[in-house]
């Protein structure tokens, strides 16, 4: 979609505007905190201290960030192709099924370093498959990807509930989850990484999936900006007509993008399932797929931005838990509001402040916005 706005210098486009949008989101969130009768500044201090004050807090923050890097990348890859994948949640859930099948079959015979690669393949294959059907329907039958992926989230939830209260539940157990995995399917922790900096860690679930997430972020960057396929995806995202003229197969692009997106979503399940819970339980994704939307939008669809945004949301999750402890009026659901506000201001209203900033830039230095003379026709 062409934006009817003039250009801004890159640092303003990628730094200043997201920062302003984000600040507005947090200011509005601050008002909600005031409405509840607490001091927003104290809340912010508790939140940041809870997330970064102690080594354990940092480890938890990075653990949550790992999950959000995967889902953020998943949303971003599809978005580069102008596909809105709301189905990250469902694809991650089904990815968990793939991991469960691998771990339940092999955890008694193989060590973790053999199971882990198999589980990565299974998780991404299951996630990709769950993304494939909506992609096929979009490409071949023209059904809107947003609607089909929403439907597939619900179908995934039903399938998983059915499996977790039925076939996958160990006999004699009441809880709707698989049996706990044996040591073979437990991923090694990364706490030593933070202990290098001299911090003490009691028990935190940060595990090697964090490194996998960083590798994936790099690979996504490579895919989108350094390969032919990525170029085609971005072309298609900018203008499907231009892509068609250039001889790019619409079907191939849509299906590949959604399968990559689904695979990344599926890999998200590795982190909580093999790194922390050591079982697959009902609703283990618990909204991380939707957080991915906020993370991707905030990171402006760039892997570096996504990693930073994921750490910010990890901080909100970890700090939010501490906050709920200190201020009983504020539960963790505060994060859901912040998430919504970030999506609103960094996503839907992303151009709200642009005309003003452009006017400002135009009046200070006309050259920076590509204008010869100031004539007030910026926007």
């Amino acid at each position, binding site marked *: 979609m*062409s934006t*009817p706005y003039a250009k801004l210098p890159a640092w303003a486009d990628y730094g200043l505007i997201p920062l302003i949008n984000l600040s507005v989101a947090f200011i509005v969130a601050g008002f*909600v905190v005031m*409405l*509840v*009768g607490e001091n927003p500044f104290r809340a912010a201090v508790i939140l940041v201290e809870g997330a970064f004050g102690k080594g354990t807090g940092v480890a938890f923050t990075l653990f949550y960030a790992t999950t959000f890097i995967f889902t953020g990348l998943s949303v971003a890859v599809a978005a580069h192709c102008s596909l*809105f994948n*709301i189905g990250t949640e469902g694809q991650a859930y089904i990815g968990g099924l793939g991991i469960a099948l691998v771990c339940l079959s092999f955890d008694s015979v193989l060590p973790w370093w053999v199971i882990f690669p198999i589980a990565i393949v299974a998780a991404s294959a299951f996630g990709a498959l769950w993304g494939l059907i909506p992609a096929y*329907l979009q490409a071949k*039958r*023209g*059904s*809107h990807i*947003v*609607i*089909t992926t*929403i*439907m*597939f989230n*619900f*179908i995934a939830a*039903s*399938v998983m*509930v*059915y499996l977790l209260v*039925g076939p996958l539940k160990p006999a004699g157990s009441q809880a709707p989850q698989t049996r706990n995995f044996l040591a073979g399917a437990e991923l090694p922790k990364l706490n030593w990484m933070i202990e290098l900096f001299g911090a003490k860690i009691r028990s935190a679930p940060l595990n090697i999936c964090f490194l996998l997430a960083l590798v994936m972020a790099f690979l996504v960057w490579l895919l989108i900006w350094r390969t032919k396929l990525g170029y085609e995806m971005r072309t298609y995202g900018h203008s499907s007509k231009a892509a068609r003229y250039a001889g790019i197969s619409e079907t191939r692009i849509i299906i590949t993008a959604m399968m990559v997106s689904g695979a990344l979503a599926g890999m998200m399940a590795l982190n909580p399932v093999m790194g922390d819970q050591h079982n697959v339980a009902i609703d283990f994704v618990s909204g991380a797929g*939707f957080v991915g*939307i*906020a993370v991707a*939008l905030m990171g402006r669809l760039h892997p570096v931005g996504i990693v930073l945004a994921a750490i910010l949301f990890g901080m909100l999750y970890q700090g939010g838990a501490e906050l709920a402890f200190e201020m009983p*009026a*504020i*539960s963790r*659901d*505060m*994060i*859901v*509001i*912040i*998430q*919504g*506000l970030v*999506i*609103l201001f960094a*996503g*839907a*209203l*992303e*151009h*709200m402040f642009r005309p003003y900033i452009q006017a400002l830039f135009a009046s200070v230095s006309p050259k920076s916005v590509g204008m010869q003379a100031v004539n007030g026709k910026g926007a």
Partner: protein
Amino acid sequence: MDIFNAIIQVLDSTIRLSVPLLLACLAGLYSERAGIFDIGLEGKMLVGAFAGASAAAVFHSALIGLGTAILISVAFALVHGFASITHRGNQIVSGVAINFIAAGSTIILGQAWFQQGGRTPALQPGERFAAITWPGADAIKDVPIIGPIYAELISGHSILVYFAFAMVPFTWWVLFRTRFGLRMRAVGENPAAVDTAGISVAWLRYRALICTGILTGVAGAYLSMVQNGGFVKDMTAGKGYIALAALIFAKWKPVNAMFACLLFGFLDAASIRLQGSPLPLVGKVPAQFMQALPYVLTVILLAGFIGKAIPPRAGGVPYVKER
């Protein structure tokens, strides 16, 4: 006679379960016909349910509750409009944002104001919409066949149920027999043509969104003040999305919307009723299968295997006056 009674009971709960879907579905119909995708039906219903139950509990009046539900829901609809009409933002993104803000704020504010774990206080009889017994319902009750149909199915619902079903012909009339409806449909198909005729695209779309807000507000009020005696966190539980599915299933037409919602309501009612008891011919059907059926049916429809669902042409595209 037992089977007949069972059928009456299932149909009765079908009506009760399809009312919130129907209201939300018609709500979505107004905005989507005007060219604004609305993923945020779920969120608007949720804030409506919360605002309605809270106001009814505080002011001890069902009507004030309903009014507040509509007011807050319309306010959220206007936020959607502000983002997607005035600022030409992505409509899907804006809808997703509204759902999150609704889900979070209802829990946070509910806990802060009432301290009952996100619930609102249980509503007393005067604070809810009571069932209306139609004249002669008690007298005719024991007459075979007609009696139960009249007494159970037609009589004995709250005013909001009748309102929901009355909205079906009303919406049809507005859409296909009024100037506003014609313009609204036009703005969803070809906004440039409407603009050329000297009619404000933005103001038309805002009005459509206000209609959406009113109906989702009523839908929310129905959930928290009729079906349930108070607000429970996350009580919409995906109904906004089912309504969206029903809207597609109905091909954006009001009468079809009613039948789609009744069908989805019936699936829900049947899955509650069956609960593991075997069906003839197919044997035992897992409850999850019945729950997933509306979504599966919608996907199959979208794939073009049962007719073709063609959305309003300008749906999801922000209108830019000049390029």
